């Protein structure tokens, strides 16, 4: 209940901000941060709970973006339907990739997911209708009222998508499914021998995770009024999706949210004030710090402080 009240407040605040705040840049930057909140939350379902490290985020994100773009070009499909279709397509990709790779353990699975990104990018580079290597220019339709700017509308949509992603992750984490995924991470063999259908659960996690990543990509073509393979299947999405849960903490559904807020906000600030190349350095420094000094992330640090101060 508390969760849903908080979610409603966040959404209402987003709408209020979109209607009242004039400066467009805030929404332009905020949108990117929200995309990473969704990506990190989605990544954590398979990578954090089940312990299967996935470098393939750009494949799912990019397929979602291209699904939306192609449906818009072909049928001028409304945005909400684009988002749903993107989720379905990337979910199916998650399922298919899972069937092929989830029997592999650890490092082999991680390598297979990198290959997935290369395959998807090559596919879209060679698809003429989707713009090929040069990309596709897209003309935004007018925004839906009460929004007077398209970016502000996308911002509110991104908040809604992030909330859905967090709600799904939370539900998984707190149900028997989450316990099964944690059992898989701790010991796959013991999980099987205590009745956990490990392959099925991993497929489920991979499908849900992929679907949510797809919805995160769905609004990207409209956000940029443009889509092209190189930036859509960019490894930065893989790094952000993986680094944020590490920074925030993988054990709790709020970990990836906190991590993504910290990391991408910092990246936005750095790329505006210093340079966009410094972005990569920010991720690197933060990652090294957290992996070495706080392997349970910000949430783990909080817990430790709380425990020592209450003694």
């Amino acid at each position: 209940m508390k969760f849903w009240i908080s979610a409603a407040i966040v959404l209402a605040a987003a709408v209020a901000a979109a209607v009242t705040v004039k400066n467009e840049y805030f929404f332009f930057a905020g949108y990117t941060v929200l995309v990473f909140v969704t990506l990190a939350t989605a990544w954590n379902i398979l990578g954090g709970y089940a312990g299967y490290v996935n470098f393939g985020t750009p494949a799912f994100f990019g397929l979602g973006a291209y699904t939306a773009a192609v449906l818009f070009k072909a049928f001028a499909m409304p945005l909400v339907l684009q988002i749903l279709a993107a989720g379905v397509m990337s979910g199916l990709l998650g399922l298919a990739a899972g069937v092929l790779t989830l029997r592999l353990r650890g490092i082999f699975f991680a390598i297979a997911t990198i290959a997935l990104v290369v395959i998807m990018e090559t596919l879209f580079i060679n698809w003429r209708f989707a713009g090929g290597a040069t990309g596709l220019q897209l003309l935004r339709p007018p925004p839906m009222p009460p929004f007077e700017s398209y970016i502000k509308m996308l911002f509110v949509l991104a908040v809604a998508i992030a909330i859905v992603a967090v709600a799904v992750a939370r539900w998984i984490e707190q149900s028997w499914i989450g316990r099964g995924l944690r059992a898989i991470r701790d010991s796959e063999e013991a999980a099987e021998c205590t009745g956990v259908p490990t392959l099925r659960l991993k497929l489920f996690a991979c499908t849900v995770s992929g679907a949510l990543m797809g919805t995160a990509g769905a609004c990207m073509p409209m956000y940029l009024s443009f889509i092209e393979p190189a930036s859509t299947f960019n490894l930065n999405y893989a790094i952000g999706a993986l680094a944020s849960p590490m920074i925030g903490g993988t054990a709790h559904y709020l970990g990836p949210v906190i991590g993504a807020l910290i990391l991408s906000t910092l990246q936005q600030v750095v790329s505006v004030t210093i340079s966009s190349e410094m972005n990569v350095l920010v991720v690197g420094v933060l990652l090294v710090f957290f992996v070495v000094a706080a392997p349970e992330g910000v949430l783990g640090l909080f817990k430790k402080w709380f425990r020592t101060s209450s003694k």
Partner: protein
Amino acid sequence: MVPDILKIEGVTKQFGGFTALNEVSLSIPQGERFGLIGPNGSGKTTLINCVSGALRNEAGRILFDGEDVSRLPAYQRTRRGIARSFQIPRPFASMSVVENLVVPLEYVVHRGSLRGADTRGEALAILRGMGLAAKADTPANQLSQVELRKLELARAMAARPRLLISDEAMAGLAPNEVDEVLAILFDLNRAGITIIMIEHIMHAVMRFSQRMVCLDAGRIICEGAPDAIVANPEVQRAYLGA
């Protein structure tokens, strides 16, 4: 005649060119207390891995309750009633002790009817029986080696098996703790559960078992009552090394 709950027929398992199990055949009637012994590396754990589904046997069949389970994934064998402990403990380290038991309770016992089930209460009851109740909310990665072994057995019991396989659950336990665990296994057996005990602690497995088998280099070299097994010259040779 009591029907066999487990029937192993000509099971062979190879690792590369190495034959770890060589046409092993065994029948275990329902409700029996069965002891499996053999020197280090003789294939005891490998046989258990094949029965529980952690490994697939190349040849032969494994019948549980008359059904060939040798191609089923491990989780389905667990749901049919085969549970095991691991010789090298494999706790769910990120969970508390009680949550370790909730996993099989959710995935086996109350599968499909979780609503209203008191899995925590049931788990606590099992922990109490194992003398682990005080550690219920301790993270499993903070347990001692002895506690981990008890957790292995408790988690296997939580699946409410009909066949319980204990792979050296008593190694490292103090004599009074060995007696405790033996008493628990005797109780389970009285409740109708068939038990296979793998053990190097000879007096324990002899006291417990109604019938025993000795493996050596992947073959059964002797089968019979505990006294007969220890008296058997082949068993003595296998253990002492000829």
